[in-house]
């Protein structure tokens, strides 16, 4: 029903098709791997018929399962810690003044701008040096020595995840009306209550967004993980990279498909919840400046204001 000028329609069309293109770009490789996970032929390239055998094979493939478990575990732990640390950092940077604030900001920004490969080798050097020294110091034998593995991976992942969380949370903190927190204090809430009851719920979208990003980054990290992993701490990307020596096994496609499917389901679920909540909330929203349609009520308002109640049906 809405008339549009042709030029604007053209612009919208261009923007829309460019966007579709981007999604195609993102999802064609995903589609390929999903397809391959059902492909009977072991080496890609040709279609050998539909099969689910790779999925059943997957359940016997301890290495892949373990690697996937490792990846998920590390991502979950790193994300959890990073969300806490990153939120704290962004609170400090946004809400407190202290000397060296700029320097602190730049340190926080380091993981974003530091080349991954440099970080990887630096961490390898660092951990070999410190773990060795620590073991010497503690007199640990070979059996119970400190060594690289899941802990070192988590330490590394937490660092860069923290930076990204801080980045995202800071941007939502900046748009948060500071008088909300003051209102809470004014009503008798101490700093702690204010944070839990008011600040955190208000910046929750930012925190969740940061967590999502951190989780994605951790799950997908190869280079840094590669350098700091140790016995029994093979993550999925590292396992897959090893397999590239031959051809990638269809089971890898299968597990990728599973992870993809599960996360999509999860997020779609979250979206459905969000949409119901937001539909609920947006019911009968009235913008601030809208006045009642009832003119008679207004007329009375000028004479005897107390009889007039804005919002009466």
């Amino acid at each position: 029903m809405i008339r549009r000028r042709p030029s604007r329609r053209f612009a919208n069309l261009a923007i829309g098709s460019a966007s579709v293109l981007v999604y195609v770009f993102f999802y064609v490789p995903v589609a390929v791997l999903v397809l391959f996970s059902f492909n009977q032929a072991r080496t890609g390239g040709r279609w050998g018929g539909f099969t689910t055998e790779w999925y059943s094979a997957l359940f016997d493939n301890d290495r892949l399962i373990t690697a996937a478990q490792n990846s998920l575990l590390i991502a979950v732990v790193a994300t959890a810690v990073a969300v806490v640390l990153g939120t704290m950092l962004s609170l400090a940077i946004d809400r407190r003044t202290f000397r060296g604030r700029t320097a602190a900001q730049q340190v926080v920004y380091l993981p974003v701008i530091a080349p991954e490969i440099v970080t990887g080798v630096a961490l390898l050097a660092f951990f070999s040096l410190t773990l060795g020294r620590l073991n010497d110091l503690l007199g640990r034998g070979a059996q119970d020595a400190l060594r690289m593995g899941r802990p070192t991976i988590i330490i590394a992942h937490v660092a860069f995840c923290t930076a990204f969380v801080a980045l995202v949370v800071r941007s939502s903190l900046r748009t948060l009306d500071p008088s909300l927190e003051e209102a809470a204090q004014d009503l008798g809430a101490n700093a702690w209550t204010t944070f839990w009851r008011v600040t955190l719920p208000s910046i929750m979208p930012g925190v969740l967004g940061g967590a999502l990003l951190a989780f994605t980054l951790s799950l997908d990290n190869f280079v840094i993980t590669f350098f700091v992993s140790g016995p029994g701490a093979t993550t999925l990307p590292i396992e897959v990279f090893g397999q590239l020596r031959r051809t990638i096994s269809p089971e890898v496609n299968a597990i990728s498909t599973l992870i993809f499917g599960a996360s999509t389901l999860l997020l779609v679920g979250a979206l459905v919840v969000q949409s119901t909540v937001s539909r609920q909330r947006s019911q009968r929203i009235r913008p601030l400046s809208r006045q009642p349609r009832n003119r008679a009520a207004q007329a009375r308002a000028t004479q005897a204001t107390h009889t007039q109640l804005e919002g009466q049906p």
Partner: protein
Amino acid sequence: MDQHSQRGTVSLRKVTKRFGDAVAVNAVNLEVEAGEFISLLGPSGCGKTTTLRMISGFELPTEGRVHISGRDATDTPPHLRTVNSVFQSYALFGHMTVAENVAFGLRVKRRDKPTIERKVQETLDLVQLSDFGSRFPGQLSGGQQQRVALARAVINEPDVLLLDEPLSALDLKLRQAMRYELTRLHDELAMTFVFVTHDQTEAITMSDRIAVMDQGEIHQLGTPVDIYERPATRFVAEFIGEVNMLEATVVGGDGTRTEVLLSSGDRLTCAPVGDSRLTPGVSVVLTVRPQRVLLTPEGGIDSQEHASLRGELRELLFLGDSTRGTVGLADGTELVAVRHNEDGTHPFGTLRPGDRVDVGWRHGTACLVQ
């Protein structure tokens, strides 16, 4: 002194607030009585909000002390003060329902649930929002949000309620309605209200007393009539209502009248300013309200009872309810007269722009300020 009797008083003693080099509030003394409705009135940036925030505890005074309910509260953190605020932006918690918003103060004080529920219901009744408890703030109109903010503050039964321009985001009609609402609440609750505004009509219609501020200082503290009729300074005269100002020099006078020389060359006799220390030679400003200015054809003013000046009618402006006439005096200064359009006819009779006119005012209706 008896603590109890002081409940609800606020007292600022030589309170100064500096931000870096800038002085936001300058050695302000203010005594608010219990149960009073006091307004802080002044232009943007004059320090009203800063003053309020020192009372609520969000700013620390650089110098001076803040007493609330008779106790020195200067170092008490906000959440332990017996004052509550209504913020200009409402600052409602968007993730909580109206009822949860209102319950917040009691919940953080860990009142038991039945009490909280009962009081929330009572308070929502008070602000006439009983049916809106389960809505979210985003689903309310501006005026309703305003009332939620109010309910959220008053449910805590603070000694003092602070309101920072709570009406400025509302449109005219709603603002009028909310003014009435606030006055009603003040009567019902018997709390001290400290109300910040830059709208003189708001201050005048609602307050017991008004503190007029400018540049961090309180220029005058008094009842609305005091402030309107007897402005202490030029700034107050100018800020409250429309006013004509004529530069003048004192040339003589005694205890009962002062003789001044206007820049237009006219000599006038005025009632003296309160504690008249106006010695000849002092520069003063003669202020007179437009609605007290007579505007007649030449010679139409009885110069016995009235001060009278001669000029030319420059402009007549229809304002709807009233008409405004602008008169140019001999030296070019302008004087404005306003008259209600009482009976649908031109309130200044047959006068037309360009006519020679007399303007004047009854002796005693003009005021001298320094």
